[in-house]
């Protein structure tokens, strides 16, 4: 008769045992009901102790599910945590109990919390000689052996305590404790608990997630990040990741009360919890027996040990000696219960088929052991190959090019002595030393192993117990509700590879990544297909091993820290003028400066009028600037720009275009010659880094003989553009030494002078068609100069303007913007910049491509202006251009698309720039832009709409 368990709040808590602190009680709520547990419990162990059998329901079929495993392999017991922290979907077996925990069972899938996650997450980098993954007996031995050599060791384990299968197991646990204590004494060894190594990448780069505060509950200190991702580069890696027990597919194998045999043992030893009152054990290997004996010793009645093997061997004898009934050569063929398990059907198994009468055995617990799957996920991620070991009925590691070794049960070793010896040798080897007997001294001497009885019976492959009906409740993947019937449908449809079967049935694709279902899927599929398991293999294991929150991956890189924000030296001036900013690359640029009551259109119209009719100024500091120096600087720039640069005189400026070797526009800008051997090159704001990279690439890889050096000076100069017919008046007041006439200071020239008392370089450059200056000063003087310009311009109504006005002004002049009006398929000729492409130069990057048949054809897309018939219709940027109205039957030929579109105050109408097939030939033609269901009629025009004679640039 079973020993009476205490009937209390914890009807299944054993009177002694377990690594729990019985002196303290924690209260928690599950599905709205209050329960208690102890420190050291997981949510799963606490629920089991309280007699809660059903934890969740399944995803597709809504079937009742209970705790099935004990760790991250759990496929059933999915819960949502509401307090003291929020988690959308975790396994009850990995949630450490804390005071005030509030959790709910899930119907197979979670739901993200509504609010933002207020917790902090972080990242850490680590380098080590040896990384040991897993702190069971093999991992502890490996870490110790490596640490003793003085190597830098990192030992990571996903549990709250080191020890793995040793935990709570008497003398063996004492061995583990000694190993833990010794490890703590090595200053070069870092032990990471609650840390799951989830990804194994090239050159021994591994990622691990450390959960730092969840187990502390509401007591978690605010200054500690909740989770952090370790980015570890390891000299060598020792994988001691253990093994997962495998279920067996039989009818109704998913009922609450059905549990992996090893999990049941762990609940007894680690948590002092009896999984049930009366158990049946169904096994295809020796592992079911020690589980049965441990449960019996803990007071659970073992009604039957059902062993699929006809010859059960030494272990069966032990069990019989202990008074446990053994039915060799039998199988569990089904279960009953409503919904939790109440009885088990057992039949004789002959040649894999159940036969003879059905024995119904009453039981509230069914332990299953179909054998063991070495946890080879990380090894497989590392590029390691697997082989099927028929003697062990397991896929075991074969080989890997990375510096990695797999030890212990992850390598197929299943006795404790083997695991420890294996681990110790690998640890020493990983630290570059062959282990001596002394290294393996007293602490590493294997702990006593009650399971090692000196010879057992070999496991048999048992995947599927057929019948009694259609295998619609023979579950293969509990989390995905995939059954043998689903697999049969897939093989019946002609699928014969595991990767296809996985995708067709979704087996192995759930949050548990098929830890319990993967090899079982292969086994059942091999059975259905009539092939060997070894021939079918496993699916590819990919990161992450366990789910990783996006918040943890993002770490601190979110919100303001997501991407650097660059502001110019004039940012405070823009804020003071209530600028609305836009992002241009990483830069914050003023977009427009609305006055009280103005919308964007009104503000931009006002800013445009000021620039065209009076005077306006803008912050142009974000333009990229590159200082190009050296005796060969002119030669170098001649090779990169489409036009001639070397003939430029010091003091003068030239506009230039750069192409890639394929002839397409890369960037454009101005080039100032500052000395015979020195140029200042400007780039578009977004391309500043790319153009410098481009220059360095050519200098280093193709023209190392050229004496040229390049340096970015973008942030060494602040630039104010002063624009409009009255700009000369404003500048003259501030820079009395500067020649004011165009004869002495012509367009496309630069002069060094003083502006508002500050040394400045003033350029006569215009991106608007108006008389304009660009005033460059060191950035720390920029606010002073800006305010001085504002004061000097006040009598003329000077107006600050932003990027939107800049775009309107340049588009009215038909000036393209690289990256907006180009997309990497556009030549300078397409843009109408043929005048900037030298015919004289023998070569420049891109020149040969301009003669290719494709770049020379006349019907290429060319930049033109589009004028909507209705002067108020603003065309959408990105809108398509078509030739005919009404639209012909699809496919409708596309002529091109709109690249820029604005309202023009100067023109008194809307207009657009577009890349249109054979566009220059179409000037004057009527074409159409579909907008929604409307065809907007537009007329093609030359792209320069404002002041085509260029009469305004000298004021």
């Amino acid at each position: 008769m079973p020993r009476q368990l205490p009937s209390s709040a914890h009807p299944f808590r054993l009177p002694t045992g377990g690594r729990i602190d019985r002196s303290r009680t924690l209260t928690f709520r599950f599905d709205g009901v209050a329960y208690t547990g102890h420190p050291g419990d997981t949510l799963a162990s606490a629920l089991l102790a309280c007699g809660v059998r059903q934890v969740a329901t399944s995803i597709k079929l809504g079937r009742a599910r209970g705790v099935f495993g004990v760790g991250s392999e759990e496929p059933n017991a999915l819960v949502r945590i509401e307090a003291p922290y929020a988690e959308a979907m975790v396994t009850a077996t990995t949630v450490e109990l804390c005071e005030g925990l509030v959790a709910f069972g899930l119907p197979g899938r979670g739901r993200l919390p509504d609010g933002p996650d207020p917790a902090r997450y972080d990242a850490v980098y680590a380098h080590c000689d040896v990384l040991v993954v897993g702190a069971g007996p093999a991992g502890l031995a490996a870490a110790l052996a490596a640490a003793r050599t003085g190597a830098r060791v990192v030992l990571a384990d996903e549990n709250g305590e080191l020890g793995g299968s040793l935990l709570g197991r008497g003398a063996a646990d004492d061995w583990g404790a000694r190993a833990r204590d010794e490890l703590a004494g090595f200053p070069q060894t870092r032990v990471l608990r609650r840390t799951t190594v989830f990804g194994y990448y090239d050159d021994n780069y591994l990622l691990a997630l450390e959960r730092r505060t969840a187990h502390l509950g509401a007591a978690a200190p605010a200054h500690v990040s909740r989770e952090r991702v370790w980015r570890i580069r390891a000299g060598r890696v020792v994988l001691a990741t253990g093994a997962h027990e495998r279920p067996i597919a039989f009818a109704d194998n998913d009922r609450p009360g059905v549990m992996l045999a090893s999990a049941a043992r762990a609940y007894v030893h680690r948590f002092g919890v009896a999984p049930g009152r009366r158990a049946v054990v169904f096994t295809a290997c020796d592992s079911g027996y020690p589980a049965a004996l441990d449960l019996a010793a803990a007071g659970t009645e073992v009604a039957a040990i059902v062993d699929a093997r006809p010859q059960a061997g030494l272990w069966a004898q032990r069990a019989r000696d202990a008074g446990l009934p053994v039915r060799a050569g039998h199988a569990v063929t089904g279960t009953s219960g409503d919904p939790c398990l109440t009885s088990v059907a057992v039949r004789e198994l002959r040649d894999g088929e159940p036969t003879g009468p059905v024995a119904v055995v009453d039981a509230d617990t069914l332990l299953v052991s179909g054998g063991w799957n070495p946890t080879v996920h990380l090894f497989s991620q590392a590029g390691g190959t697997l082989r099927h070991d028929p003697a062990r009925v397991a896929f075991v590691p074969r080989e890997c090019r990375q510096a990695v070794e797999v030890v212990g049960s992850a390598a197929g070793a299943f006795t404790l002595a083997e695991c420890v010896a294996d681990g110790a040798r690998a640890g020493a080897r990983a630290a570059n030393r062959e282990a001596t007997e002394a290294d393996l001294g007293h602490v590493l001497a294997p702990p006593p192993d009650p399971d090692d009885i000196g010879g057992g019976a070999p496991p048999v492959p048992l995947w599927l117990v057929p019948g009694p009906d259609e295998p619609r409740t023979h579950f293969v993947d509990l989390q995905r509700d995939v059954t043998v019937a689903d697999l049969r449908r897939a093989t019946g449809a002609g699928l014969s590879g595991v990767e296809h079967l996985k995708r067709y049935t979704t087996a192995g694709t759930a949050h548990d990544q098929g830890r319990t279902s993967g090899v079982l899927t292969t086994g059942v599929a091999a059975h259905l297909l009539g092939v060997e398991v070894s021939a079918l293999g496993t699916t590819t294991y990919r990161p992450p091993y366990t789910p990783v929150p996006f918040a943890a991956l993002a770490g601190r890189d979110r919100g303001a820290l997501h991407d650097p924000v660059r502001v110019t030296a004039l940012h405070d001036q823009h804020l003071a003028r209530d600028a609305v900013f836009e992002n241009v690359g990483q830069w914050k640029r003023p977009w427009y400066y609305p006055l009280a009551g103005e919308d964007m259109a009104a503000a931009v119209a006002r800013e445009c009028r000021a620039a065209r009719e009076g005077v306006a100024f803008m912050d142009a500091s974000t333009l990229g600037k590159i200082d190009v120096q050296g005796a060969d600087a002119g030669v170098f720039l001649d090779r990169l720009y489409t036009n001639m640069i070397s003939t430029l005189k010091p003091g003068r400026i030239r506009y230039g275009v750069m192409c890639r070797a394929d002839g397409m526009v890369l960037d454009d800008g101005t080039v100032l010659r500052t000395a015979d051997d020195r140029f200042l090159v400007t780039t578009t704001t977004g391309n500043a880094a790319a153009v410098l990279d481009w220059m360095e690439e050519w200098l280093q890889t193709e023209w190392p003989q050229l004496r040229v050096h390049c340096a970015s000076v973008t942030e060494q100069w602040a630039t104010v553009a002063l624009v409009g017919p009255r700009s000369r008046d404003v500048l003259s007041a501030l820079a009395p030494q500067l020649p004011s006439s165009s004869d002495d200071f012509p367009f496309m020239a630069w002069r060094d002078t003083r502006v508002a008392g500050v040394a400045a370089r003033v350029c006569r450059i215009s991106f608007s068609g108006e008389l304009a200056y660009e005033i460059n000063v060191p950035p720390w003087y920029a606010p002073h100069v800006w305010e001085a310009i504002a004061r000097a311009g006040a009598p003329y109504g000077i107006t600050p303007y932003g990027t939107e006005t800049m775009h309107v002004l340049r588009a009215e002049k038909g000036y393209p913007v690289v990256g907006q009006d180009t997309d990497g398929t556009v030549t300078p000729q397409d843009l109408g910049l043929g005048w900037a492409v030298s015919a004289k130069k023998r070569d420049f990057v891109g020149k040969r491509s301009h003669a290719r048949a494709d770049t020379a054809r006349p019907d290429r897309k060319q930049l033109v202006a589009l004028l909507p018939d209705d002067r108020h219709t603003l065309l959408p940027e990105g809108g398509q251009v078509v030739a005919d109205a009404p639209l012909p039957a699809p496919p409708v030929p596309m002529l091109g698309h709109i690249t820029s579109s604005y309202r023009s105050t100067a023109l008194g109408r809307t207009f657009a720039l577009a890349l249109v097939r054979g566009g220059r030939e179409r000037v004057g033609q009527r074409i159409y832009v579909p907008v929604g269901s409307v065809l907007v009629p537009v007329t093609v025009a030359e792209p320069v709409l404002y002041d085509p004679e260029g009469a305004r640039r000298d004021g």
Partner: protein
Amino acid sequence: MLLIPCPWCGPRDEAEFTYGGQAHVPYPRDPAALTDEEWARYLFFRDNPKGPHAERWCHTISCRRWFNVVRDTATNEVLAAYRIGEAGPVIS
């Protein structure tokens, strides 16, 4: 994450580098002398081997040097790294 041995700085994380495609594809001495097909071959055609592949990398966020790497595209193993202008190793 590859560990790439920069010939100037030593082994560093892949994230510090940018990839520059196949190595040893020199800019033609006289592009104008090439046929369209020869020029297209320079522009658009690259090897795509399964196995050792000589390729260019730039140590962008450190020394900013371009150099060459021989990488096995099947295993991602870096077999060699050498400076621009140096001869590549013979990979059998």
